[in-house]
């Protein structure tokens, strides 16, 4: 059997190669299309259209790599290449880790998450392709008010389903009292939501300060022994 390091190295090499190919392919599409139709934007036109978006999304896109890598492990590459992280891949990863009772940060967790994310990506791509094929006959259903309403509430439904699993640990390690780390950040943001504004549309950018803040409180509570680690002496689900 090969070592964990060898497998990890293999996944990293494959992931980086995939990412490089993806960057080239993604930029090739508008470049070839623009050149073919002689409709290439000037740098000034591009900056005018892009500046607002880049200021908002580039910091989010960069910080997401640091925020989500601990959740996805080796599956981070394929997760980012296929996208829809918060609204699909986080719950799928959590679901698979719970099903196989794996411990975060272990190779078992990485492998199971990679399998789940890859399968999920293929299912999503297939469904979107079907959507393109059936665009005309499906339109009355997909644009109906019931379907539009239901799809607007996909995130509350996802988090409602996940909250039970997220609050307990899976695998051989139990982090007791970890919920306490989220209490102050939760209250702070709750007050902002009541007295200032609803932060629903800004959740992506808010993760940048909120995750380090939660980890900071976890560190204080860990030092004060309010958060403790318990190792369960039993076989994980294998």
């Amino acid at each position, binding site marked *: 059997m090969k070592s964990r390091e060898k497998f990890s190295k*293999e*996944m990293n090499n494959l*992931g*980086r190669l995939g990412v490089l190919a*993806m960057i080239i*392919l*993604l930029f090739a599409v*508008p470049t070839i*299309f623009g050149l*073919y*139709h002689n*409709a290439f*934007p000037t740098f000034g036109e*591009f900056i005018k259209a*892009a*500046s607002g978006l880049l200021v908002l*999304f580039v910091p989010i896109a*960069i910080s997401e790599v640091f925020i989500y*890598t601990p959740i996805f492990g080796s599956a981070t590459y394929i997760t980012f*290449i*296929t*996208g*829809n992280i918060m*609204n699909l891949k986080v*719950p*799928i990863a959590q*679901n*698979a880790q719970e*099903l196989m009772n794996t411990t975060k*940060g*272990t190779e*078992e967790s990485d492998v199971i998450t*990679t*399998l789940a994310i*890859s*399968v*999920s990506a293929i299912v999503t*791509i297939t469904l*979107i*392709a079907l959507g*393109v094929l059936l*665009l005309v006959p499906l339109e009355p259903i997909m644009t109906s008010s*019931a379907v539009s*309403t*239901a799809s607007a509430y996909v995130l*509350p*439904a996802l*988090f*409602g389903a996940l*909250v039970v699993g997220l609050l307990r640990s899976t695998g051989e*390690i139990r982090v007791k009292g*970890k919920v306490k780390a*989220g209490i102050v950040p*939760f209250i702070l943001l*709750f007050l902002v939501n009541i007295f200032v504004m609803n*932060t629903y549309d800004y959740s992506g950018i808010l*993760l940048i300060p*909120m995750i380090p803040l*939660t980890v900071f409180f976890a*560190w204080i509570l860990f030092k004060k022994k309010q958060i403790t680690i318990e190792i369960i002496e039993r076989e994980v689900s294998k």
Partner: protein
Amino acid sequence: MNDTFFSIVNSGLLYIMVGIVIAFVVFLSLVFAKKAWKRAIELGYTKDQLLTVIKSTSIATIVPSLAIVIGLFALAPVLGNPWPWLRLSVLGSVTYELMAADMAASSMGVPLTDLPTVGIDAFVNIMFVMTVGISAGLFVLLFFGEKIQKGIGSMGKNKQSFGIVALECFMIGLLATFLPAFFTKGIVSVLTFFTSTVITISMGLIVLKYKISWLKDFILAFALIGGMASSVLWTGLLG
């Protein structure tokens, strides 16, 4: 202008290029899945267990994916079919793509819905803006991905260290960010959240009490369908 615009943005050339990119992503996903499967077997998982993961994942993916397909119906009338097909199939997210297209068009002084009347130059510009905006994460992964992975790996090595706590607390941080927004967004959002929670807990209890282990694989899918369906009911009653 409209007919010319749509014949260009729905042209065979764009379909072929988009098809190639999506085919590559499917191929890459299959390679990742195959390697993970092989390694999982080496680690001692059985084929049945791995098939359970595949089955549960596939079913749980369907409902959130339908929300992504709806994004296609929102973007296709202004950007044609192939480009939204690509943007929703790889990278980004349905919310990002909708917002990015809208922001890029607004910055050019054009409402997104008027794009077909403006011309193909603006469309190509939007293609570039949407691509650049979402690619930053890929560049970070390309240059620093391995280092970040190693850092995370070392966090999980010592089972008594704070690293383990930090790994677990990332998910708590996600909850602390999203829950206040859900709870104050409106009563339908709160009720949808709790409907989904109640379905999850109830099904978990049924699995434990009646020892129906296969039902465990469907909890996420049922909770999602139930939660989203309930949002229509709550909107009708209270919205």
